[in-house]
């Protein structure tokens, strides 16, 4: 399906990452937005508030992030593509209902413009320390998809991808950007609507008498309905069977949780995306994502100049994690150097997936700014030794 031209601002623009996220949502067909202001994400909400009245969307500034996340789920069940945006403290508040979205298998998109933490931290400065929270932040077992843009153009493109992934797999999808990308202004090319691919909702074609809201298709994803269509479904955050009815048993739990997890894990190859550069002869591979990948590129160029065989693996989809690829590379190289603005998050995934066959070295950063390429270079040298 192609995008609805109504929301697509075709042309060349100079936009910051936050505004580009908003345009990505509009182009993907997002027509419901609920949010609560928080730096450095607020510009997304502001642009949506300005643009929605002209495209038939509805924006609401909720009383808090708990309400925002819950409203997204309700709106999605009423048939809207729904989106919110937040940062650190608001992300924490959304966690319980992010789990509800995963449990009810509700498509929706949440952008986290990461800032320095913990707690109120550095409201106006970048961080990448919510990456594990993105994966594990809500209680219980579930899988999630997260994607990490490194430029305003990617903010636009990846928000569309996020909507498409969320419709296809019926999971909330997180767009994990950061203050740097959110506030940097660059050229953003918005293509015409007919060039933008939009994944439609997986509405059932079955009549109400035959439809079960949680009976999975062969790819483990159930078909959806929207409220008001006469299906009179029930959906709950309690453990439920294919009818959507609560069942308090270990058997039902096993069946449901396994499907929620496996619908993503068994299709990870279709979901995962990354970019590689100069990997062929590499002894060392730098792993990075988001803004850090742009700094890493500089450090890699410096290292290559010094004759070090170093390559780059840039994560695009960060969750699910490219487990297989890391393992393959680990067999061939000496070490990974992981560049992220935190004191160790994705580096543990790299370490886990390397299975002891290559070292995983972190270039830590507490947040507030991006790495100095010299610090990365130093770790690359250490790794190559």
């Amino acid at each position: 399906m192609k995008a609805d031209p109504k929301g697509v601002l075709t042309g060349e623009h100079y936009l910051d990452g936050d505004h580009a996220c908003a345009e990505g949502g509009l182009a993907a067909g997002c027509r419901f937005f609920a949010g609560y202001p928080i730096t450095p994400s607020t510009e997304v909400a502001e642009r949506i508030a300005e643009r929605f009245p002209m495209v038939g969307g509805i924006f609401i500034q909720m009383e808090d992030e708990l309400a925002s996340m819950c409203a997204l789920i309700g709106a999605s069940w009423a048939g809207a593509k729904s989106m919110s945006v937040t940062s650190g403290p608001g992300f924490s508040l959304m966690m319980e209902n992010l789990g509800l979205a995963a449990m009810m298998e509700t498509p929706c998109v949440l952008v986290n413009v990461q800032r320095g933490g913990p707690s109120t931290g550095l409201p106006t400065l970048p961080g990448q320390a919510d990456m594990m929270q993105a994966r594990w932040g809500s209680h219980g077992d579930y899988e999630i998809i997260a994607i990490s843009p490194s430029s305003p153009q990617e903010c636009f493109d990846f928000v569309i991808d996020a909507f498409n992934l969320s419709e296809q797999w019926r999971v909330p999808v997180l767009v994990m950007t950061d203050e740097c990308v959110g506030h940097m202004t660059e050229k953003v090319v918005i293509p015409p609507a007919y060039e933008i691919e939009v994944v439609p909702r997986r509405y059932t074609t079955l009549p109400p008498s035959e439809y079960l809201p949680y009976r999975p298709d062969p790819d483990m994803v159930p078909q959806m309905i929207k409220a008001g269509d006469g299906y009179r479904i029930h959906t709950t955050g309690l453990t439920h069977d294919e009818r959507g009815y609560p069942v308090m048993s270990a058997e039902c739990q096993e069946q449901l949780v396994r499907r929620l997890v496996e619908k993503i894990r068994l299709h990870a190859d279709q979901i995962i995306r990354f970019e590689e550069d100069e990997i062929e002869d590499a002894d060392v591979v730098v792993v990075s994502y988001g803004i850090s990948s742009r700094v890493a590129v500089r450090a890699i160029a410096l290292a290559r100049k010094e004759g070090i065989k170093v390559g780059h693996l840039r994560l695009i989809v960060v969750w699910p994690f490219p487990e297989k690829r890391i393992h393959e590379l680990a067999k061939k190289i000496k070490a990974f150097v992981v560049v992220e603005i935190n004191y160790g998050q994705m580096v543990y995934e790299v370490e886990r997936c390397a299975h002891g066959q290559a070292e995983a070295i972190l270039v830590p950063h507490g947040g507030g700014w991006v790495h100095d390429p010299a610090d990365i270079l130093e770790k690359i040298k250490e790794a190559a030794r």
Partner: protein
Amino acid sequence: MSNGKPSEEHHPMEALLRMDRIPHIWCSTCGLGTSVSAFALALEDLQYDLDKICIVSGIGCTGRVAGYVKLDSFHATHGRAIPFATGLKLANPQLKVVVFSGDGDLIAIGGNHFIHAARRNMDLTVICVNNFIYAMTGGQVAPTSPLGASCSTTPYGNYERPFNIPHLAESCGAVYVARWTALHLRRTAKSIAEAMRKPGFSVVEIICPCSTLYARRNRLGDGLELMKFYHENSIIKHGADPRDVDIDFQSPIVVGKFVDRDRPTFIDGYNRAMTAKLGEKFEPYGVAPAEVHDG
């Protein structure tokens, strides 16, 4: 539900219930059954297309209502029924959205959503079953527990002043506020129907003491004795000033319709403001196609 004894009475409103989920989990003497019957009667009276009505509950004994009613029904997280319902309503304004939940869910953990939905005049009908307690979790004190009432976390009696729900709703902007007890089946049904007809944020409080936990703990007798107490101590006072309808421990309870007024709903306000500001560029939101093409 804590005694786990399902009630097995045959329900007259089978069309509205998920019979494949009956018997329900509620105690046989609980007023929740009556509350659901009142809702069913209201729907019968309204004759709305049931396919266009959604029900949203939070978590609790009352929170289980959504699971038994054969409508598009949503069982959200504790306290979040109102924002969930807000999303449903705003994404498809043609839907009638009813929130059916407990006092703890709506007024404690969800209190912030309650006051803001009232302020915005979100077009929702909230049916709040006030059983003076957190029943699902075993009878802890709630922000509605009367002063002096014994609860599992106030073993020496509650010493916090409770909320007066009609007053809270009225002062935050609700356009329709009524209170009945589980004894007043027909009157509750009538109020629910009126509330659902009313555009905007409407609240029907149903006083429905938890017979198992609250009544037992406070030695108020069995279900029948509770009913007798309500019968003898309910004072019907339509139009009573909501400030005067506080509930004290075992005091008489003022019931009736307290508020019925008109204010623009959230969507009305939005459409008016945007039309004034943006003119032709703005297409009114959520107006039924028929309304658009009329005249």
